[in-house]
């Protein structure tokens, strides 16, 4: 009987897999490039509802994905992904050989179609081009994970017991808490990337995440809230929390109790009044995390901007075409800057993306001017630039997409309390809830956990079920204060691609002040 596969298995195959990738193109007449990603993860998790155990598991995953670029005249790509088990370990190279054959055949056949389509539709199909990848510095590197408590060493029973304990404590808060769901998971993930160009990069991450969903029934109203805690660390994230420069979480117990208390308070609060006109709004870091995610990060993905996601994820108002776009133009108040940076600590941290590109910070907006998209090698080549290393898949068997990493509004220099004190009449919008954005991210409605009225510089009435509606550029241009309190939050559920990939990342920002319409109940 085969044993559970360990992360260390990749040590045994690393050089053979690298050799396979390096040698493959020379064996095929029309193959220009291949790369291989192999991932192994080991972890555990548990779920409790209403104080009752529901599920616990300790398992591994093992999968790979390959890409080939091939063609006689024009080139095209082909991919193949597979989930594996421990029983495949001895035959990994054979499986990879087969996968490369599939990917190569698909690429070559698609390239032939591409050439034929150019001839068949001469007016329309001249843009079918000879695909290329922007050059990168080819690296060999090994990056270890960071953690105090190794996810592999935590007893599964402890994970289940802790989760049940949190769920019971939340339930015990009040009879008005009629449902709660508590989830905790912790795992190590190791990813090997090799390419025919000679890249050989081995990265390991510790990933730990808590989830709380609570439903409260008050005397006249109800409230459902959910939120996540998480960081690229070990089990200590759940039991001790995180206290770093921009990332702060209490233990999952305190995190969940606080969320439940908020839900109880909200179920006793009136609904937020909607406004026909814009009002002054101060938005807190947690709310701004989702604003930044939806209307800075997503439209800054270059695959989206180049129309490659038109059917599903949408386009970007930052780029109409290569001549007509917002690069170098003012899109926000000079107080607004926003960036993506995989190299800083956060849920979206890594040093190399899924095509071996060394990751670096990209400023999307700097002092109000649009500056740079998130890119892959293929999309960067179309723009004639270099990739900033944001091509990531959630699993090795899936094809990478351009994704956010740690994407946030940059901090300003204002005291957040002073930003509120300066408001004679307005609203303080706290905690993000659910977003709905326009197709090119040019407008948004994002609901908040809590909305407080501000009168004479002080917080007053608390409202439930409120949020903001705004055209993105107007909201950015109206920003007149940016706080010095940057925070990053774990966003574990960003969906993109077909099939849908759900990626972990960090989003954040400081306290900000702008103008928007308030939304309420309908």
């Amino acid at each position: 009987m085969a044993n559970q596969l360990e992360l260390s298995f990749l040590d045994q195959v690393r050089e053979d897999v690298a050799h396979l990738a390096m040698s493959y193109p020379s064996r095929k007449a029309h193959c220009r490039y291949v790369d291989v990603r192999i991932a192994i993860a080991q972890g555990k998790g548990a779920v409790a509802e209403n104080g009752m155990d529901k599920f616990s598991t300790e398992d591994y995953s093992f999968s790979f994905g390959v890409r080939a670029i091939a063609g006689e005249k024009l080139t095209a790509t082909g991919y193949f992904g597979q989930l594996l088990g421990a029983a495949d370990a001895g035959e990994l190279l054979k499986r990879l050989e087969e996968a490369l054959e599939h990917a190569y055949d698909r690429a070559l056949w698609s390239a032939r179609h591409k050439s034929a389509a150019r001839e068949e539709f001469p007016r329309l199909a001249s843009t079918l081009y000879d695909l290329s990848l922007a050059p990168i510095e080819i690296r060999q590197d090994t990056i270890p994970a960071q953690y105090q408590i190794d996810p592999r060493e935590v007893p599964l029973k402890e994970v289940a017991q802790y989760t049940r304990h949190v769920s019971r404590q939340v339930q015990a808060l009040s009879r008005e808490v009629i449902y709660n769901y508590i989830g905790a998971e912790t795992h190590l993930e190791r990813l090997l990337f090799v390419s025919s160009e000679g890249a050989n990069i081995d990265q390991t991450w510790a990933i730990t995440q808590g989830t709380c969903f609570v439903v409260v029934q008050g005397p006249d109203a109800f409230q459902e809230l959910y939120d996540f805690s998480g960081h690229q660390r070990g089990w200590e994230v759940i039991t001790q929390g995180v206290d770093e420069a921009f990332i702060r979480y209490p233990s999952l117990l305190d995190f969940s109790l606080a969320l439940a208390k908020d839900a109880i308070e909200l179920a006793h609060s009136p609904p937020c009044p909607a406004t026909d006109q814009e009002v002054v709004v101060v938005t807190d870091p947690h709310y701004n995390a989702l604003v930044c995610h939806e209307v800075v990060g997503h439209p800054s993905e270059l695959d989206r901007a180049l129309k490659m996601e038109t059917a599903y994820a949408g386009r970007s108002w930052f780029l109409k075409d290569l001549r007509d776009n917002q690069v170098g133009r003012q899109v926000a108040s000079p107080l607004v800057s926003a960036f993506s940076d995989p190299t800083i600590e956060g849920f979206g941290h890594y040093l190399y993306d899924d095509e071996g590109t060394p990751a670096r910070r990209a400023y999307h907006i700097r002092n109000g001017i649009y500056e740079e998209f998130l890119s892959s090698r293929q999309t960067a080549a179309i723009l004639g630039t270099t990739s900033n290393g944001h091509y990531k898949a959630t699993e090795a068997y899936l094809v990478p997409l351009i994704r956010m990493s740690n994407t946030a509004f940059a901090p300003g220099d204002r005291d957040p309390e002073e930003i509120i004190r300066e408001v004679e009449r307005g609203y303080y919008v706290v905690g993000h809830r659910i977003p709905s954005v326009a197709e090119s991210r040019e407008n948004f409605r994002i609901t908040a956990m809590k909305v407080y009225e501000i009168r004479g510089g002080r917080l007053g009435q608390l409202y439930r079920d409120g949020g903001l509606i705004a055209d993105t550029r107007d909201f950015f241009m109206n920003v007149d204060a940016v706080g010095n309190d940057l925070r990053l939050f774990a966003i574990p559920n960003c969906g993109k691609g077909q099939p849908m990939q759900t990626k972990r990342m960090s989003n954040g920002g400081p306290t900000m002040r702008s103008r928007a319409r308030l939304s309420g109940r309908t």
Partner: protein
Amino acid sequence: MLLPLSELQRAAQEALQFLMAQKDVREAEIFVSCNGILHCRLNYTSHLPCNGVEEPKSVANYGIGIRVVLQAPEGEGVLVGFGSEPNDISLDGVQLALEKARRGAVADPEFVSLPRPTGEMRRLHAYHDPRIMELKDQELVDLGWQIIRQGLKAFQSAELLLDRDPQELALILGGDVTVLQERMAIVSSAMPHVQTDESTLILSFVTAMVEGEASKGSGYGAVTHWERFHGEAGREAAEMAVRTVGGVRVPAGRYRVVLGRQAFMDLLENLILPGLSLGTWYAAASPFLGQLGKEIASPKLNIIDDGAAEGLAGSKGITCEGLPTGRTELIRNGVLVGLLCDWYESQRITKDPRAKEKLGVDPQQWRHALVPRNGFRFARGGGRHYDMQPGIHATNVIVPGEEDHSQLLRLVGDGLYIGRIWYTYPVNGLRAGDFTATIVGDSFVIRDGRLAEPIRPNTLRINDNIHNVLRGIIGVGREARPTLVWAADEIVYAPEIAVEALEVQPITQFMGS
């Protein structure tokens, strides 16, 4: 290459014998499956470098999953565990899965039993297409290029293209074609005869734009057999994109509307079906809480889930719990009469002390409304997965109606035809029923009961509540077709519906006209 069904069948049988020979195992269920999920992602642009077929790709997997009820080591009671092992369906794999199930087993006080026969009979056998099971790499690529060619032909023959530069018009054709190959076998101590199922599906979803004119159209299709796929989604999307050139902005207001198939599907996927799932009721998060047996919609509305309908794209022979699929009436003449259930939730509700308050009726007296016909292990954008536990998923959602397209337009008189909406979410939580979405294409002004000028995409936001929509239905179309939205598992045979009033507000004024 997928494993043959006979291998899955044999593995399931051997695993059951092995598991029931274990001293601590009281009940066991074995689910063995293999899946091929193949995609061609499409991207053509007339103004930017592109590849046409951007990504021909696939994911293959197989393995074994087991659910066991174990005698608790200390004293009374049972533990329930789940474990799976990929790519090894031999007894070695079963042993590994059992070890994981034992290690993770928990005492769930609400657990009643693993699935048992419901008394219903399987209706659907041998309905898949063996041709799709044998799909070759080149054929996958051909499917994608077939759609691209259909779209380019439609653009090429458009009058608009006669005297305009395609680069200036900025034509876009994007989306994907998805092929699903699914095989599974299931057996359990309660249902010891191995059952098997095979299903195949080709789905296509395409969006086309004349971006230079800010117009957008959609095309989609779902077929179960190879010979029924012709790539029409590309042509359909391109033709609609051309047809909606010259879109106008519409002022704010409450409009009488016709919701097109995709728009209605989006409401079903994001609000109505989650609200009709029994798990959501357990969590007290359904907008229809406490209203089983009560009127929740216009009497014109009927919604049925039918996983055993012959020839429909979402049909399966059995659920991933080994129970027969079948017809579940959800809404009959506006009255809520049934919920989507899997076995676990249909049992758990009977142990829930707040069940009557949540449902609005005694679950024991309404067992006919809580039949577990929707327990599936869908994930990863398709496939029936051995490493997932069952959850509630709709199959073919059928909404019968009587009016034809022109009758619906006449019912509206003056209003809006909303063909496609986007990012449709219950922004104040599902239970509140409030939702918002933007109108992104395929939409028109309705004037004097006819389609008039197109509506410019991305210029209107809907802010309303699902209860208003359901109660305000004034007509349901009779021409339904399989409709898809992103990341949905179910296929909705969606008609167009006419609704008394929907609140819309103009947005994105800064983008100009």
